[in-house]
């Protein structure tokens, strides 16, 4: 029955992208409306493979909503009315929901796990749900432990992990198990983990990366950034040479602050 339905749905939707074998080369966001129902000033934006694009704006301006639109491949059926196209086509229903065919990996703002399972049991089950080798669980834990202070043990219950440990595990899980061509990242700077390394891990090679951020360094690592206001996409800024000069300074300052943070965390005295 469900097969018949998905078939009739895809027939009704016209040409669709059916298989994962098609590598997403572009992700297109077609504008919808803001919180007051006014059309997005940005009517369309196309993001190519290998690009990191930022989403910026005050809290409550609709950044996470835009990320959610992309995650579920909105087809004008979300409150924003936006549409998401892959290689210029509407993705089929199967690609929207089946984790084995999913094109999108998402790091949300959630800092904790609610599942009452051990770290290892959970990761093995997640690998299975994505059609991957459950043995990848060990690799995820090893990688997470390069991002966080106190190591995560495979036998730990997920629910006792700290916010930083949980986030590190989520990042490593995305890099290893949910290795998808489109990566969505929501405020990684709040994680209490090494943000630049985490972003590099998540971005991988040749992916489409969308980063929601308030962090100047992460925002300037993006080649373009979408500016949100009152739920709408108001403009797209391309970074320029002046900004990239500032980026060098920001990177230096951030490196310095990170080293100070580590010294203090390790119980040493700042010299």
């Amino acid at each position, binding site marked *: 029955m*469900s097969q018949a339905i998905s078939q009739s749905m895809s027939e009704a939707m016209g040409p669709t992208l059916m298989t994962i074998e098609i590598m997403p080369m572009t992700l297109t966001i077609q504008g919808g409306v803001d919180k007051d129902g006014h059309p997005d000033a940005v009517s369309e934006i196309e993001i190519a493979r290998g690009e990191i694009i930022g989403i910026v704006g005050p809290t409550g301006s609709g950044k996470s909503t835009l990320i959610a639109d992309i995650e579920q491949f909105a087809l004008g059926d979300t409150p924003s009315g936006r549409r998401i196209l892959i290689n210029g086509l509407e993705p089929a229903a199967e690609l929207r929901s089946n984790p084995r065919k999913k094109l999108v990996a998402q790091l949300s703002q959630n800092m904790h796990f609610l599942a009452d399972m051990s770290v290892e049991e959970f990761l093995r089950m997640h690998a299975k749900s994505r059609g991957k080798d459950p043995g990848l669980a060990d690799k995820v834990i090893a990688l997470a432990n390069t991002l966080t202070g106190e190591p995560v043990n495979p036998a730990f219950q997920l629910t006792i992990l700290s916010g930083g440990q949980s986030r590190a595990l989520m990042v490593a899980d995305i890099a290893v198990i949910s290795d998808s061509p489109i990566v969505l990242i929501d405020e990684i700077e709040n994680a209490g983990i090494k943000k630049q390394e985490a972003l590099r891990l998540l971005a991988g090679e040749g992916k489409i990366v969308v980063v929601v951020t308030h962090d100047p360094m992460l925002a300037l690592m993006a080649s373009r950034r979408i500016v949100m206001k009152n739920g709408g996409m108001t403009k797209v800024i391309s970074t320029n040479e002046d900004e990239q000069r500032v980026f060098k300074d920001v990177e230096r300052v951030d490196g310095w602050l990170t080293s100070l943070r580590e010294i203090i965390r390790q119980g040493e005295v700042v010299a």
Partner: protein
Amino acid sequence: MKMVVVAGTPGSGKTSVLMHAVKDLLRAGHFPALVKIDCMWTEDDARFRRLQVPVAVGLAKDMCPDHYAIYNFDEMLQWAEAQQADILLNETAGLCLRCAPYPDKALAICVIDVTTGPNSPLKVGPLLTTADAAVMTKGDLVSQAEREVFRERILEANPGCRIIEANGLSGKGSAELAQLMASWPDISGEMVLRHNPPLAICTLCTGELRISKEHHRGVLRHLDGFMEYTGE
């Protein structure tokens, strides 16, 4: 007439998800009518009435709410026909997880809350295993990995079911749900339940208050799993 039975544990978001689906059905030109079944009290009917659709409430009081719903399906259908509806939506109270009040020809939907953890799909029983579709709610409160593990667990419990990720606050997933409702075949002829209700009855069902074993008769199950019939 199409019939949709929406079940799920209390607080899982049945009403919120249904409200969004009703809006989508209205937009698509359908005429849904809604019957809300609850145990003692409800104010959900007021929420549904704001959508300008016919709403009826049934309170099961002393009767098991699922048995009450099943016993009254004929009356619900007659009422919906009198309202000139083309889809009857029945939201159940959803409590003991032993009954599954799904007629074979209705669309059976189980609403299940992701934050209850990945073991909950295994605990829900026939409510989930005999459903046509599982609607996962509150997914925004957990990571993508947790949603995917939850999904896997639903498929372990009910391999053939369609899964819809929905959000009762934002309305995510409701368009897909409404489309599924609208595509379901009309009901016809005699309907039967998909799953049998619990076995027999015991003296507690008929009002016995005393606890000691000697006062009880009927088909009874011991803590160690032994089942026996005591009585005439």
